[in-house]
Structure formats: structure tokens, C-alpha cells
């Protein structure tokens, strides 16, 4: 008996581009979302919160129908780590791979399951609650059977998407967001394939396999899931696949096997549709691919095919749409340059989107004129960097930083032993050789062009920057060590901006104000704005001890003492002419 475990198949999206005119009356929606799975609901949640005109179409009578059937053995392979030892909600999402993003703290998966690998039934329940609690506009039992394009100059994208459901009802949509997943099974064809049982229909009762020899085609997640469930009752299980077993901790790709369960692994050119790094279809403007089907952007690299990845890419798509169609620029916070180091340290320590979608989504810092201020943009699809200005509505005229998370170049690859000797790097000087996921900051004087992005050096996520900085890896992903992490970052930023980004106490700023014509940014933006930082006695003492501060009170003492010496003639008091000096020098010489 055989079993086809590779059930993923090329996207079953039937997009016929027939241009016949729409029939009769139809309902218009600005945004139409196909599928009420995790990605569809996630998009709906953002559209809903932004107050957009949208509709979700779902074939099944409830959300997340995939999870009512799959995985066949009901155990999800996405982790639900409820206790991380940290209170930071954003950080905790790094260990919560099932929740969608919302402002409702109750809509976190940890309220739905206690299991580390939760049951698929909990996911169904979660998705239902997500749609209901947020009041998302989902039309169930609606199967979109036909999609056509209708050219219209007034349309946002030059055409409308005309959707027809199984009852012949017609919808006109300005933007079409496809979140249907990849649910068509992969058909195998070889002599004897008629004996194969597909993963989609294989029995989940181990009793059915008692005493049999089983051949499993594929060594992905579904194959191992099946194998594990029948392991106890069979004679032999053979597993066969085109490629070696890839363990996710060796490839740091969550689609590879984690703890000997999970994965896909066939040629993705067939499996995934052609889309841009902005998740927009290369063929039709206004058509976006969300969720699992969007995995081609980062296939085998990042987590874009999984809930914990695409919840962030969906948000990025939403932000792009907000700017494109509603003139709302990409959200950002603006800060004085003195906050530059802080902003980066804060994000790399807590951001989940950066962490999950490493190499795909990156934070962008846009410098303002004279580099006194900057704008911080979160989670921008980094392959679209060249088009940043048009896509976000933010200007990058004065240089920019990109914050990305990266594994070391030596880390990955299915053949490599990730526990190789010396794999961790402890010295800041060797930070660039860090192997584990660590923040990397790119500095560009000018926004790279499309050419530069396309023809970037091999294995580089971005074009060659003006300067680059690696924050040395940390096993606990805690990048807050004053000397190990923050200091080298500050030096890097200082050298990029050619300024001094140190912080100073008010007393130092006071001294600088009265003894220099220029002030460091910290004094300018803090002290002179009457927000100087006052030191305390204890801190002052440490400062004197470390020689970074001077004890002016005792300095006076020393000088006063010396001025009381009998030989001292209060040198400055008598203003003597130059000639006088020579005379006295001459007489001195004679004495000597």
C-alpha cells in the first residue's frame, strides 16, 4: 500500500482573462478577499480597522476550513509557547506561531490551547472567534467560480476584477486579495500509482495499517506526520523522496522538519504563482497573493508560508495599499538623531516581524536633512527597497539604514553540521562572523536603484552598502549589553553620520555650551531644550573614577593651593609687553 504525502499542488486559481462585459447588476467592493483562512482573516482585520470597503468570500460555511480536515492527524506543527519569561507582548509573538495580529488581547492563541503543538480543532475555534469578535465581513458558502478583468479607466488599477459565485452573483472589486492557500493535492503518476492513497484521504486510524508494509512518498512534514501515527503498528515503513531529509534547525527554515515532523519540498516554480516582492501579481495590477501561496517570495528562506510569517507580510501589503489608494503614508515615528541607537536596540530586541520574516521584511530608517532627525519605518518588504519612496510616501533623500536579521553565511545548508566547532562568536570584532540569527544594519548614502537591488552580490539580501554593521549574536536574542552590543552599534552609526552620538550629563553640556561653538547632538537636543540629564552624586563619583568626568570642585583646590606658593607671582595678572618677557627670559638665562 502506498501513500502520497505530497499533497501541495500548483495554485488552483483560475484566472481567465476573458474580457466579456459584466452582466446586469453587481455589487462593488473596494477590496475583495478570497478565502477566510488565516491570511484572509488577517487581511480582513486590517481592512476592517482601517474602515475600508471590503468583503471576504469563503467557500465553506465557517472560517479555516483547511484546518477542519488537515493536518490529518490533527496536531499542528506550529509552536504555541505560552511562557517565554518575558512580558513584552511583541517579543512573545516570536514564540507564538498561531495567533493573528489584532488589537484584542483575547485573540491570542495561548487562550485557546495549552499544548506546545496545538490541536487543529483549536485553530478552527480560534479563527471562528477571530472573525466574530472583530466583526469581519465574511460571506460564507460562497464559491467564487469565475474571475475576469474588466477594463475601466476610472478603476484604481485601470481594471476591475469581476467575481462570479456559484449562484451567478457578480461582484466588482477594485483590488483582489487571494488568500486561498494551496489545497489541491499533488497527483502522482507512475506504474502502481493507482494503489497510492493520498494524504488528503488516507485513514487516520492506525488500526487500518496493522501488520502492513508501508511506503511513504515524500519526506516532508505530512509524510512524517503520517509515519509517526502508524509507527507502532506496521511491519516496515519506507520513506522515499527526491531530496535528503532537511531538518529545520539545520536550515533555519521552518518548512523543513522540526523535531522530526513536517515539510513540503518540491519545485516551487510549479507550486507558487509568480508575484513580486510586494506580493502583487506580476500579471495583473491590483491582484495580491496572501498567505501560504505567497511563499514564493521567500520560499525556503523565511517564514512567509506560515501564519507566523504571513501575518506580517499581510500587514505590509495592507500598508502598501493604504498608501496607494488612500494616500496614507507608511506609518512611521519621527525621532531626534540622539534616539537612533535606542530605536534600533529596541526593535531588534522585541520586534517579531523582523525576527520571523528575516531576509524579507526589514526596518528602514530614513534620515532627514543634516541627519538631525530620522523616520523609523517598520517591516518593509526589503526587495522593494528601490521603490521605497513611491510605495511608502516617505522620502529617502538623505541616506538610510536598513535593519535586517540574518543568519551567518556559514550557518545554513542541509549538509552542514550546525553544531560545528566555534560556531558562536563572542567578540564584537568578529560579529560579522556570527552564525545565529543576529541583526545586521546596512547604511546607504542613497537609495539603491532597482538595478542595484537586482544585481546585488550573490548571497547578499541587499546591494552592497556604504557600510555594514553586525550586532554580535546572542543565544538569548538579548542585544542590550552596553559594551558588547550597544557601544559598537553607536560607533557604527556615529561613523556613518560623522557625528558624536554619546550622551552627556547636563554639567558637561553646560561646559560645552560656554567653551565651544558647537555642541554634540545630545546636548543640542536635550540640554538646550531644557531637558538636560542631571547626574546624581553616586554617578558623578563613578564618572570621576572612570576619568570620563572631572571633579571641578577639587580641581579648584589644587590650583588655589599652588597659587598660594610664595614663588608664584600670579602670572596672568600682570599683563607685560612682549619686550618685557624677553628681558626676563634673558636674565633668567644668565642666572642659569
Amino acid at each position, binding site marked *: 500500500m502506498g501513500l502520497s504525502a505530497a499533497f501541495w499542488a500548483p495554485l488552483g486559481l483560475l484566472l481567465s482573462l476573458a474580457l466579456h462585459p459584466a452582466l446586469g447588476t453587481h455589487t462593488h467592493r473596494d477590496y475583495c478577499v478570497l478565502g477566510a483562512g488565516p491570511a484572509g482573516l488577517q487581511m480582513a482585520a486590517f481592512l476592517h480597522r482601517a474602515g475600508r470597503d471590503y468583503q471576504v468570500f469563503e467557500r465553506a460555511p465557517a472560517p479555516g476550513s483547511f484546518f477542519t480536515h488537515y493536518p490529518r492527524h490533527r496536531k499542528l506543527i506550529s509552536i504555541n509557547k505560552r511562557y517565554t519569561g518575558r512580558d513584552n507582548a511583541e517579543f512573545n509573538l516570536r514564540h507564538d506561531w498561531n495567533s493573528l495580529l489584532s488589537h484584542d488581547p483575547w485573540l491570542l492563541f495561548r487562550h485557546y490551547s495549552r499544548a506546545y503543538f496545538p490541536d487543529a480543532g483549536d485553530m478552527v475555534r480560534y479563527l471562528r472567534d477571530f472573525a466574530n469578535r472583530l466583526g469581519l465581513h465574511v460571506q460564507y458558502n460562497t464559491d467564487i467560480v469565475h474571475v475576469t478583468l474588466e477594463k475601466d479607466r476610472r478603476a484604481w488599477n485601470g481594471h476591475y476584477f469581476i467575481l462570479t459565485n456559484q449562484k451567478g452573483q457578480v461582484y466588482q472589486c477594485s483590488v483582489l486579495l487571494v488568500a486561498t492557500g494551496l489545497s489541491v493535492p499533488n497527483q502522482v503518476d507512475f506504474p502502481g500509482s493507482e494503489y497510492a492513497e493520498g494524504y488528503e484521504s488516507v485513514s487516520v486510524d492506525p488500526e487500518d495499517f496493522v501488520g502492513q508494509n508501508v511506503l511513504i512518498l515524500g519526506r516532508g512534514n505530512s509524510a512524517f506526520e503520517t509515519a509517526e501515527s502508524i509507527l507502532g503498528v506496521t511491519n516496515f515503513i519506507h520513506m522515499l523522496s527526491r531530496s535528503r531529509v532537511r531538518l529545520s534547525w539545520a536550515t533555519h527554515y521552518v518548512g523543513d522538519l522540526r523535531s522530526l515532523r513536517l515539510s513540503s519540498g518540491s519545485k516551487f516554480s510549479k507550486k507558487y504563482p509568480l508575484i513580486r516582492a510586494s506580493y502583487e501579481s506580476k500579471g495583473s495590477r491590483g491582484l495580491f497573493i496572501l498567505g501560504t501561496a505567497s511563499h514564493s517570495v521567500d520560499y525556503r528562506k523565511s517564514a512567509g508560508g506560515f501564519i507566523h510569517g504571513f501575518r506580517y507580510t499581510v500587514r505590509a501589503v495592507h500598508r502598501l495599499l493604504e498608501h496607494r489608494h488612500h494616500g496614507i503614508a507608511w506609518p512611521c515615528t519621527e525621532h531626534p538623531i540622539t534616539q537612533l541607537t535606542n530605536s534600533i536596540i529596541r526593535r531588534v530586541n522585541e520586534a517579531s516581524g523582523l525576527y520571523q520574516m528575516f531576509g524579507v521584511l526589514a526596518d528602514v530608517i530614513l534620515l532627514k536633512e543634516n541627519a538631525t532627525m530620522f523616520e523609523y519605518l517598520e517591516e518593509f518588504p526589503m526587495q522593494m527597497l528601490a521603490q521605497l519612496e513611491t510605495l511608502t510616501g516617505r522620502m529617502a533623500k538623505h541616506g538610510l539604514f536598513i535593519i535586517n536579521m540574518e543568519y551567518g553565511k556559514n550557518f545554513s545548508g542541509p549538509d552542514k553540521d550546525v553544531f560545528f566547532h566555534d560556531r558562536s562568536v563572542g567578540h564584537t570584532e568578529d560579529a560579522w562572523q556570527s552564525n545565529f540569527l543576529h541583526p545586521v544594519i546596512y547604511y546607504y548614502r542613497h537609495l539603491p536603484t532597482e538595478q542595484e537591488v537586482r544585481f546585488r552580490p550573490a548571497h547578499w539580501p541587499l546591494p552592497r552598502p556604504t557600510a555594514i554593521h553586525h550586532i554580535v549574536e546572542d543565544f538569548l536574542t538579548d542585544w542590550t549589553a552596553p559594551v558588547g552590543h550597544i557601544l559598537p552599534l553607536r560607533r557604527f552609526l556615529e561613523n556613518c553620520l560623522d557625528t558624536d552620538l554619546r550622551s552627556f550629563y547636563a554639567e558637561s553640556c553646560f561646559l560645552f555650551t560656554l567653551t565651544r561653538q558647537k555642541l554634540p547632538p545630545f546636548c543640542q537636543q536635550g540640554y538646550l531644550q*531644557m531637558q538636560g540629564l*542631571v547626574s546624581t552624586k553616586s554617578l558623578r563619583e563613578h564618572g570621576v573614577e572612570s576619568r570620563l568626568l572631572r571633579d571641578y570642585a577639587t580641581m579648584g583646590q589644587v590650583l588655589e593651593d599652588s597659587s598660594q606658593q610664595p614663588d608664584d607671582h600670579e602670572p596672568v595678572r600682570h599683563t*607685560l609687553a612682549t619686550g618685557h*618677557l624677553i628681558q626676563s627670559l634673558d636674565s633668567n*638665562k644668565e642666572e642659569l
Partner: protein
Amino acid sequence: MMSSDFSVFSTEVFFVVICILYTSAEDPLPELSPQKYFSTLQPGKASLAYFCHADSPSTSVVLEQLNEAVRPLQDYGISVAKVNCAKEETSRYCGKEKDLMKAYLFRGNILLRDFPTDALFDVNAIVAHVLFALLFNEVKYITTLEDLQNIENTVKGKANMIFSYVRAIGTPEHRAVMEAAFVYGTTYQFVLTTEIGLLESIGSEEIEHAHLYFFHCKLVSDLTERCRRTLMGQPLTTLNIHAFVKIMKAPLLTEVAEDPQQVSTVHLQLGLPLVFIVSQKATYEAERRTAEWVAWRLLGKAGVLLLLRDSLEVNIPQHTNVVFKRAEKEVPVEFLVLPDIDSIISHVENNMHIEEAVESEDSDVEDPDMDIQDDEVAETVYRDRKRPLPLELTVELTEEMFNRTVTASDSIVLFYAGWQAVSMAFLQSYIDVAVKLKGMSAMLLTRINCADWSDVCTKQNVTEFPAVKMYKKGENPVSYAGMLGTEDLLKFIQLNRISCPVTITSIQEAEEYLNGELYEDLITYSSLSVLGLFSPTMTTAKEDFTEAGNHLKGCVLTGIYSEEDVWILANKYAAALPALLLARHKDGKIESIPLAGTHAQDIVQIITDALREAFPEITVENLPTYFRLQKPLLILFSDGSVNPQYRKAILTLAEEKRLGSFTPCWLNLKNTPVGRGILQAYFGLLPPLPLVVLVNLHSSGQVFAFPSDQSITEQNLALWLKKLEAGLENHITILSAQEWKPPLPAYDFLSMMDATTTQHPTGKAPGCVKETYAQEIEREQHEDKRAIRKEPAETLRIKHWNRNNWFKETEKSLRPHKEL
């Protein structure tokens, strides 16, 4: 130049230097059999071998130390090996007993010396001994004064001599001297002694330390004349000796005719200041003699130059006879008027403290250590991290508690991030406030760590740390915008106990409010009480005033009175309604200002202006308020409170508007000790006080000093200011206009990454690395002309350069082999 010295020397003494190619950085001590070892010996190449029995313990102290010495010896082209005396193939160098093992130094296959293992007690000893043996001809070891005089006589008129005393052979000082001899051995005659008596007899003091003298013998033509000597003041380290020799090599006196600010010599690069003796054509000869004299006195402490005033393009203050330039880049030059040579010497010596201290401490540091914290806030917070703070006096909030807490009681919230130094520094002040308010305030002091609860902070619109907000029932939260310190925050909290503006309900109460009785305890926080007077119908005027009051929350006391009988007050203070009464509690004066048609923004401006004093004591806290006026500051520096006569003189001038565009103020060194640092920057030395200075902060950065021989009176000041404005006075100094550049370089990861990949990521020619090396060497040759960082970078380049040079040597020596 060191480079030329060295290359000549290295070709003479060590013919071939190959080891660097053979052994990479991490190579441990190679272990060889005797036969193998002798087959590796190359003619002219020095090698140190330690012979031991194969079965002896592999980690003896000697081996450990030898292991460490591999790198340093390699730098001198000396290879190191451990030779295992196996039973079957013994060598005569293998001792008979296990504990009688020795190390041998060979050049080629000729034995130079053997060392008992106890002589090789540490790396310093190993390097010192080996170099000492190799440089036998270059370094003369002597024991008597006679020896010294003989050598001195032979070099007179020919070469200079470096004489050093070290306490023992094998000490770190000995190693430093030998390393210097390795580089400079052909240029200078090195003489070494370990005899204290010899040192005493040439008149040294403090003989417990190692000493190094530079004997200026080359200048001596007459054999009867003694060589002039210069004692090196710093401890004997390789680096210090190198710097010292460099300075000795520099010309004693240089003549310059350019802006002293722009001049740079080897002295500056080595962290020594420059002294310019100002010279005029008429008196050139005398000044030149003076300068030479000063130069000898300051040799090793400062560089001395003769500044030719007549051919100078820039203007220097008229009476200046000495210009002093510190080694620190950013410090402006000082124009001095000094009476005699001794004051020049003492000025230099008094201003060298910091430099010396740094030097002695950092003598071991090899690279510019980018990992050393140079942020005063980060460093002090880090050093203080273990001191327990009474944190329990403030309530630590969590996400769940936050809304409950701030809605249930009036609270102050400090938003901070546990990893951020500025936050943590301010937390200390915040806790101090809590200590001061303990049991006295109805305001709840809380804090929330945004590193944990970032969502809460973002929701409260806090994206920068630290931030303080006040939450009061029924009011919008107020952000604190004052100094991040105990006093200002305390003032903010105290003044917020009453509403702003507070509603006054009776004439009686209004009078009490104005004379400070009503809020007696708050007067200390607000020297000004503001009362808005309105008739009950003036709604818009009242709204504007209320808005202004809200804006000034926590800065100043504001009150509002708009009862029917408001005219009583209006009459009393001769105010036309609506009006503002400003009561200054210091002098008990009440001023009235008409408010008709004034908008909130302008009311805020009026009150802020009123908060400024005519002749304030300038402090760290209030300088920004006066600095904002964009006017030159006329500062009276005073050690203690200001003399009432001076105060009166300046106030009179101010009232009569005779101070022009200047902001008069005074600085009390008792309250603001950092004022001493300011005086030092202006005058070099701390001048006698009191003292009046005019600082043009905003335009030219010029500083003028009121002549200290004149008394501070109305007339004198006015006359001086008049001359000043007419451009008849010379400034004493100009404030540095230096930009704030990165204090240290960053790691250049990009080139580190390039260096490892054979192909340059951008596809550029792989010659890129070589190119930078070539630049490096070129830079080395021009180094004297450029102002570069001091010792650390210097060392780095020495190391770098050595590598390159050896590399070249190696290439040369390898070429014939290739042809074969």
C-alpha cells in the same frame, strides 16, 4: 623616520625573515624531533629551541611561556620550537636528566647561547634574553661610570646615545629597551646597565625605577664637553620609548609663520602640547635664544616653535608673547602673556596632568580600543549598577495595572527602558524625588519598564525614553518637559498640587496669594506668582489665560480672579482689566501688565520673559533659558556670592540700557564648580576672582576678559564695553568651532568580509586589499605632516607596517627559489 631605520637594520642583522609565511597567527609551538629541527634551520635565521624529553609533562610553566612568546618572537623573525628528545635519536642538546633541560638560541646552525629554564620565567624574560643575545654588538652592557664615559667619548660628534638602567635582566623594562634597540640599534648607541651605583653617580634621583637617558652627543664637537642628557619621564615601555626617541629626533626648535591652530608636529601626534614663542623682526635674535632655552627645558614634554609674528596672516591678540596649543584636537589654542621662562615651563607642566595619567595607564593597550566605553552616562550607570536603590518607594506597573492605577489615583509615571543608560541615570533622580516626597505627597509615583511593556508605552504615545507623564483624574495626561533631575521634577510635582491656574475666590485670598502666604510652601519652587484679573464677563480673555496657565503647568504658580469685586484689585495695582499681576517674591514687587486682546501664546511668552531675571546667577539648570536669547553673555565669575557693589554696578548699567546687546549674569563657583573648567578653557590657568568675561557664544566665539587690574565699577565696565564694541579690545581666546566627530572609528566589517571572500562582492578587482596596504605605507611616510590620533593608532600602524615590511622582505628572499 622609523621606517628607514628599520629596513636598513633588518637587512643588516637578520637576513631573511620568513617565519610569518610559515606560521599563521594561531600556530602553537611546533614540536619536532632533533633531526627534523636541525633540518629546518636556515642560514642567518635565528631560532630558539627548547629541548625536552618526550615523556616529560607537556604543560610545564616553561612551555606555557614559550608558547606565548611564539608571536612576539616571530615579529622579530625568530622562530621558536619544542624539540622532543626521543630515546632513539638523542642529541647533545638533550640534557641527561629531565630537570636539566635547556633552551638554545641558534643563528643558522650556529649556537649563540643557551638559557637555563629558570631564566625564561615569562614572556618578557624570553623576549628580553633572546634579543639581548642577538643584539650583543648593538647594546653595550656596562657596569662602571668609566665604561659609560668611554663610550660617550667615542660617540661624541658622531651619534647620539641611549643609556638605560633596568633593575634586572629579563624584566619587562629590559624587554622594552631591547625591543627599542632592535629598531633603533643602528642609529643610536645603546648602553645598558643594571648597576644602581652607576645611576647614582650620574646624578639620578628615584633610583628604584628603571631609567632611560638620551645623550645628545652628536652635537658635541669638543671632547672635553659633556653630552647634554634628557631623561625620559614616562615608564619604560616599548611604546613610550618609541615615542620618546621620535621626539628626540624631531628638530629642537622650528620656525613657523602660520596660524598656530593649524600647525601640527610630531609632538601633537604623540600627545604633547606645543609652545609657540611669539617673535618680532626687531627682537628676533633674543626671542630665538629664549625659544631655544625653553625648548631644552621642555624637551620631551612639549614641542617648541618660534612664531614669526610679522609674516603671520592671522591676527593674534596684541600682547600675547606665548601661544599654547594642547595636544587634544578640539581644544582651541591659548594666547598667553607670560612674564618669564619659568611661567612658561610651569604652564606647560600644569597642563600636562591628564595626558600623563592617560599615558601611564594605557601603556599596555595595543589598539585604539573601541570596546572601551567613552559615553559618560553609559559608563557611570554601568559602574553603579550594583548599588541598591530604594525602588520600593515607587510602584512598578504592569500592563494590567497601568490603566487601573492611573485612573484610580493621581499619579506620575516614569516610562523607562531597563537597558537604556539615560533612563537608568534618570531613574536614580526619580527615586530621589520619591525619597523626598515620602509620606508627603498625594501623588503616586510609579514607573513602567517599556522594555517589558512596550505596548503600554506605545499606547501612551511614549516612543522615546525616558519620559514622565502626570495623570490626574478628569484631566488629560501632562508630559513633563523639564530637566531630567531631582529638583526640576520635584518642582513640577509640587506645583501641580494645585490646579494651574488656580481659582482665587476672594480679595482676601488674592492678597494672600500675591504676597506668598496662600501657598507658602510652593514659593520655594516658583519665585513668581501670576494672577490674572478679569471681570466675570470676559470669557475669551479668561479662556486664553487658562490655556496659558495649562501650558505653564509645573513651571510657575498661576491664579485667576474674576469675581464681581475684581475692580478693587484693579484699582489697587493700577491695572486696566483684563490684566496680569506678576508678584516677585524675592523683592516683594508686584507688576501689572494689561492683557486686552492677548492670545494664549503671547501670555505664555510674557510670563516666560518675566521669569528671567535682570542679573541672574547662571547655573547648569538655567543656562538654556538665557542662552536662547542669542546674545553674548557678560559673566561675572565669583567664588561665593556676588559682591553687592558689583551687582549694583551691573544692574545700573542694565537698567540704563548701557549693556547693549549683552545678557549680564554671574556664576558662583561654589554652586557651579564646573565654572572652573570654563575658566581654565578661557585662561589656561585659574585666574584670580572675581572676574568679568564677555563670551560671544553665538557668532564669533570670541572671549574677552575685563582687565583684572581695573576695579569692577559702572564706569570702567561701560568704558570697556564701549571699546569692545568699537573693536578696540583683543580677545583672550576663541572658542573652538570644532565639529563633534565620532570619538573612535567603528569596525569596518565590510572590508573584513571582503578580505575573506576571494571575489570582491561588487566584482571589483581583487587588488583592492593590496591597494590599501600601499596607501598605508604611503601614509606612514607622510605621517608627520598629518594630524592623526595619538599612541593607540600609532602602535597599530607600527604593527601593521612591520607586517608589510616583512612581507616585502620575504617576497624578496623567496624570489630566487621560485626561479629555481
